[in-house]
């Protein structure tokens, strides 16, 4: 045996051992990096075909034991041995899928595998070409049986010296008919006999378990109950194996005859055996009554658990890699707050009790409010949006959420936000937007009481921003008794640029205070330019010069013939003041339409003027025409 061949064999066996461990731990081993690395390492060392032989001690290469460090390799060798694999011949570098197919074939029950033609056939069916497997039973059936040195008690069972009925009779006789004594005898002899079976004697172990289970069925009911209870109350793995031999319907048949403690133990067993950790008695017993369901669940669970339990030590060796994998998945601390917000959204989704939902709303209001008070506006905004953006709560909770929003929109909190918004704090502005109409009312209250002119201006800008979304709360305040409040609201409405119907503003056009009327004209002209012309014309008759001047200015920029007619009339209207007429003339000059120019011509061509104001009108008209 050349040294290089042996070292290649060691490398291959170690890699196979690692891959087998990964296969035992993960449902999709081929996707695991460790598995892929292991196969990659095989591909890296394999050149000429290599044959690995197997015996009970592990892998051999050229008759020399392959000393692999991986325990996984030992377990793989044992698994191969159970399948009577005599040798594995590596012909060419294998793929991950090919090795996974080999392992899947080894995972199957030995008898079922053999009945389906053996592992080699399974590999052929799977298109595996890089290696081939020779199974011992195909070459030398029975040779292994002779190699095992069995205890006489085990041999007696294997040779069927006693039939199950005779075996049961002997136990019953020894117990003197006492069920508890019978249970003691069955249990102790079962354990003692199994202890005598060597580790590699699979057939022997199977025969012993089968013999005792078959004997059990020859006992009368009290005996069966006592025995069953004895095994259920034990944690020993051998006792678990005994219980695992019972079909679901057999367990279910015994269940009603057990006392409460026994039933509890049975349910515990069912819970562990079927992965129904949270299962209730009805569910568990239901599973027990369904033999197929129980059987399939138990087979899956048993195979996985057994494999994985035996892998514990190896898993620990692999622990370094596991820890590295765990570290790779450490959460990002910057996401913690967002994760908590998701939980809050989750709570809103699952909470169906009125009082508890109300509590969530209180928590929500508290969180938003607290964040605002702390000047943590981004946090406040995120808390706010946790409920309002893509809501998770049921539709019928909307009114409660609206009510909670109202509770957040206090003058105190709005004051803090406005201050921040004034400093261009983006999140503060977003909070105001998110609060919408709820914020508008609180802001307007603040505005009404604010004494500082700079803060008032800032508030007005904020109110205007809020009015962009929904001007209704602002319009609702046009009836306020305080003239300045009405004027500020009108200013905010104009600034908001929201589409408005002129008739909503019309009442303000006749407000007793001229400053309100001025602002109202601006809002109407801004919101509905064409509709506004009659109102502007009417305003030319207003007793306040500010109002008339404003109306003329607005008429100058208003579209349409009617606005122009109004200006022409105003330019000639001697009831208006000189400044107002000049304003009208200048506005006509700016329009440059034939009727405007004609009107200006009439005014500018007056040859005789007696007063200074008439001269100013004529000169202004001429200037407007020539400019």
């Amino acid at each position, binding site marked *: 045996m050349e040294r290089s061949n042996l070292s290649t064999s060691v490398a291959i066996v170690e890699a196979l051992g690692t891959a087998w461990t990964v296969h035992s731990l993960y449902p999709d081993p081929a996707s695991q990096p460790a598995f892929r690395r292991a196969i990659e390492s095989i591909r890296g060392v394999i050149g000429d075909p290599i044959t690995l032989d197997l015996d009970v001690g592990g892998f051999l290469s050229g008759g020399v034991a392959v000393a692999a460090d991986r325990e996984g390799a030992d377990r793989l060798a044992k698994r191969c041995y159970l399948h009577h694999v005599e040798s594995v011949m590596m012909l060419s570098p294998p793929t991950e899928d090919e090795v996974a197919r080999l392992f899947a074939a080894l995972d199957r029950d030995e008898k079922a595998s053999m009945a389906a033609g053996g592992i080699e056939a399974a590999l052929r069916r799977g298109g595996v070409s890089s290696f081939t497997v020779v199974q011992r039973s195909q070459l030398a059936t029975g040779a292994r049986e002779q190699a095992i040195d069995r205890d006489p008690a085990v041999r007696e069972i294997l040779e069927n010296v006693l039939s199950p009925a005779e075996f049961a009779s002997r136990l019953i006789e020894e117990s003197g008919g006492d069920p508890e004594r019978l249970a003691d005898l069955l249990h102790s002899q079962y354990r003692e006999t199994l202890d005598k079976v060597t580790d590699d004697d699979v057939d022997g172990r199977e025969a012993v378990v089968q013999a005792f289970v078959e004997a059990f069925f020859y006992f009368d009911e009290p005996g069966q109950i006592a025995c069953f209870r004895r095994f259920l109350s034990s*944690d020993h793995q051998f006792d678990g194996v005994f219980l695992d031999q019972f079909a679901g319907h057999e367990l279910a048949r015994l269940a009603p005859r057990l006392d409460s403690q026994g039933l509890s133990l049975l349910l515990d067993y069912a819970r562990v055996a079927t992965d129904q950790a949270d299962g209730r008695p009805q569910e568990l017993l239901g599973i027990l009554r369904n033999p197929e369901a129980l059987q399939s669940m138990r087979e899956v669970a048993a195979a996985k658990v057994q494999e994985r339990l035996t892998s514990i030590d190896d898993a620990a060796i692999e622990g370094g890699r*596991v820890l590295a994998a765990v570290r790779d998945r450490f959460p990002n601390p910057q996401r913690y707050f967002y*994760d908590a917000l998701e939980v809050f959204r989750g709570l809103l989704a699952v*909470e169906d009790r009125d009082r508890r939902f109300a509590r969530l709303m209180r928590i929500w209001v508290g969180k938003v409010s607290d964040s605002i008070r702390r000047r943590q506006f981004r946090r406040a905004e995120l808390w706010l949006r946790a409920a309002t953006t893509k809501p998770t709560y049921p539709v019928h909770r909307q009114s409660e959420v609206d009510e909670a929003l109202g509770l957040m929109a206090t003058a105190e909190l709005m004051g803090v936000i406005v201050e921040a918004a004034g400093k261009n704090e983006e999140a503060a502005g977003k909070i105001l937007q998110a609060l919408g109409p709820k914020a508008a009312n609180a802001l307007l209250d603040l505005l009404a009481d604010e004494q500082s002119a700079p803060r008032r201006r800032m508030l007005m800008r904020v109110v205007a921003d809020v009015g962009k979304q929904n001007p209704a709360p602002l319009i609702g305040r046009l009836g306020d008794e305080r003239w300045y409040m009405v004027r500020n609201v009108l200013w905010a409405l104009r600034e908001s640029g929201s589409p408005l119907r002129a008739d909503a503003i019309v009442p303000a056009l006749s407000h007793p205070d001229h400053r309100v009327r001025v602002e109202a004209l601006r809002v109407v002209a801004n919101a509905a330019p064409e509709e506004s012309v009659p109102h502007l014309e009417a305003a030319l008759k207003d007793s306040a010069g500010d109002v008339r001047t404003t109306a003329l200015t607005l008429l100058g920029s208003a579209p349409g013939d009617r606005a122009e007619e109004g200006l022409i009339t105003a330019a000639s209207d001697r009831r208006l003041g000189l400044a107002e007429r000049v304003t009208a003339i200048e506005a006509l000059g700016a329009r440059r339409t034939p009727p405007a120019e004609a009107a200006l011509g009439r005014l500018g061509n007056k040859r005789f003027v007696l007063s200074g104001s008439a001269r100013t009108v004529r000169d202004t008209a001429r200037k407007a025409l020539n400019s």
Partner: protein
Amino acid sequence: MIEMRGFLSGLRAASHQIHLYPEDHPALAELINVGTQAANRLAGDDQVNITLIGDSLYKEREILAHTSLEFNGLLRELQSRGIESITLRSPVSVGDFRDLAAFIASLTGDLPAEGTVRLNERPYTRSELEQGEGFTGVRRSYARSLDVLRGISLALDAGEEFDLSGATWVVEQLVEQTLAQPAASVLLSTMKSHDEYTFYHSVNVCILAIALARMAELPEDDLKLMAVGALLHDIGKVRVSTATLQYPGRLDKEQWAEIKLHPQEGAAAILAAAAPGQEIAAVVAFEHHARYDGQGYPSLAYARPAHFFSRLVSTADTYDALTTRRAYRRAETPNRALRVLLQGSGTMYDPELVQAFIRMIGVYPAGSFLELDGGEMAMVTHHTEDPAELPHAVLVRGADGVLIAEPDPISLVDRTIVDQLSPERAGLEPAELIEKLGMGEQGPI
């Protein structure tokens, strides 16, 4: 120590149940009788003095550090009734034991001065008592954690506000202790209390989660945040009725529905209490019953899987719950509990965290009982993280089945471990041995 534990258990049970039953009820009479017998075993032929100072309990002059922690709740009740010492004079009468239980339960204001049970005779001064280990290090952190949980629980129960500063404070101590003495901390997490199950369980889960996170080298700031979640993961159970929590059997549909609300109750309470930066604890409380495959309860309304911290705590939670005896089921052996974790690995639990947990706790964790090939029984005192290294153990029962009075360390090299036994099957409580061996503070012997 067995006698002391028996007496304290009996006293605790009697003082709690005396509220519930009429004086002549057979169940109460049975409890009183059992307690009286335990008191007499403790008193022996003469008398015994039990003294309370601070968090510590003394039998005569000997400090019982572990027992003090195990019966921390009862000690608090004794302190609240102003009891500084209990003298049991043999033979303790049933009537006097009953009076003692009634006194602790505040049903009576005094005890007969000449009875067989006497209070506050205080035969020893503070300076005469052994000022041994007492409550230092991890034990003190454990006891403080219990106090914090009791406080939060009372506040929640009364509908009062609370904050997380207490929890944060004790978690910092637990983290410090667990980082400094991981083996001792994990050993202490074998502490169980049937009476205050949720509180002890919560501290145990916290310790196990800290130890697991420490092994994975989670940064300390994150570790502390996770640990607050671990400590408070079950705090929502305050809202579950005691009748359901202590129901001695499998829960029916309504009871189960009530239990299933505790994650959302806990999460809401924590969110309400959390200061900015502490909210992640609510995530752990909300998701600790969410399964790895997305099943479990409550159903998560968001796209992301359960948080890493939640999965970590879920692993520790399952292990501690399974290894604790409950009214409706036996305690599983550590192996069996690991088997359940493995069985659910990839479906219920994060497979990598399960593997890491097994590596941390070991196949034979500290406090577990092992049956050896010669028929002896040993208790594991220390598991190392090196899988190649066998656990440290002490021999507690010989091949002849006789308990060893002074357990000695035993090497497991060249020995075959036949089986792992639950405390019930072993007939021993790890707590008794931990007390006897003076473990739990300084770690493995």
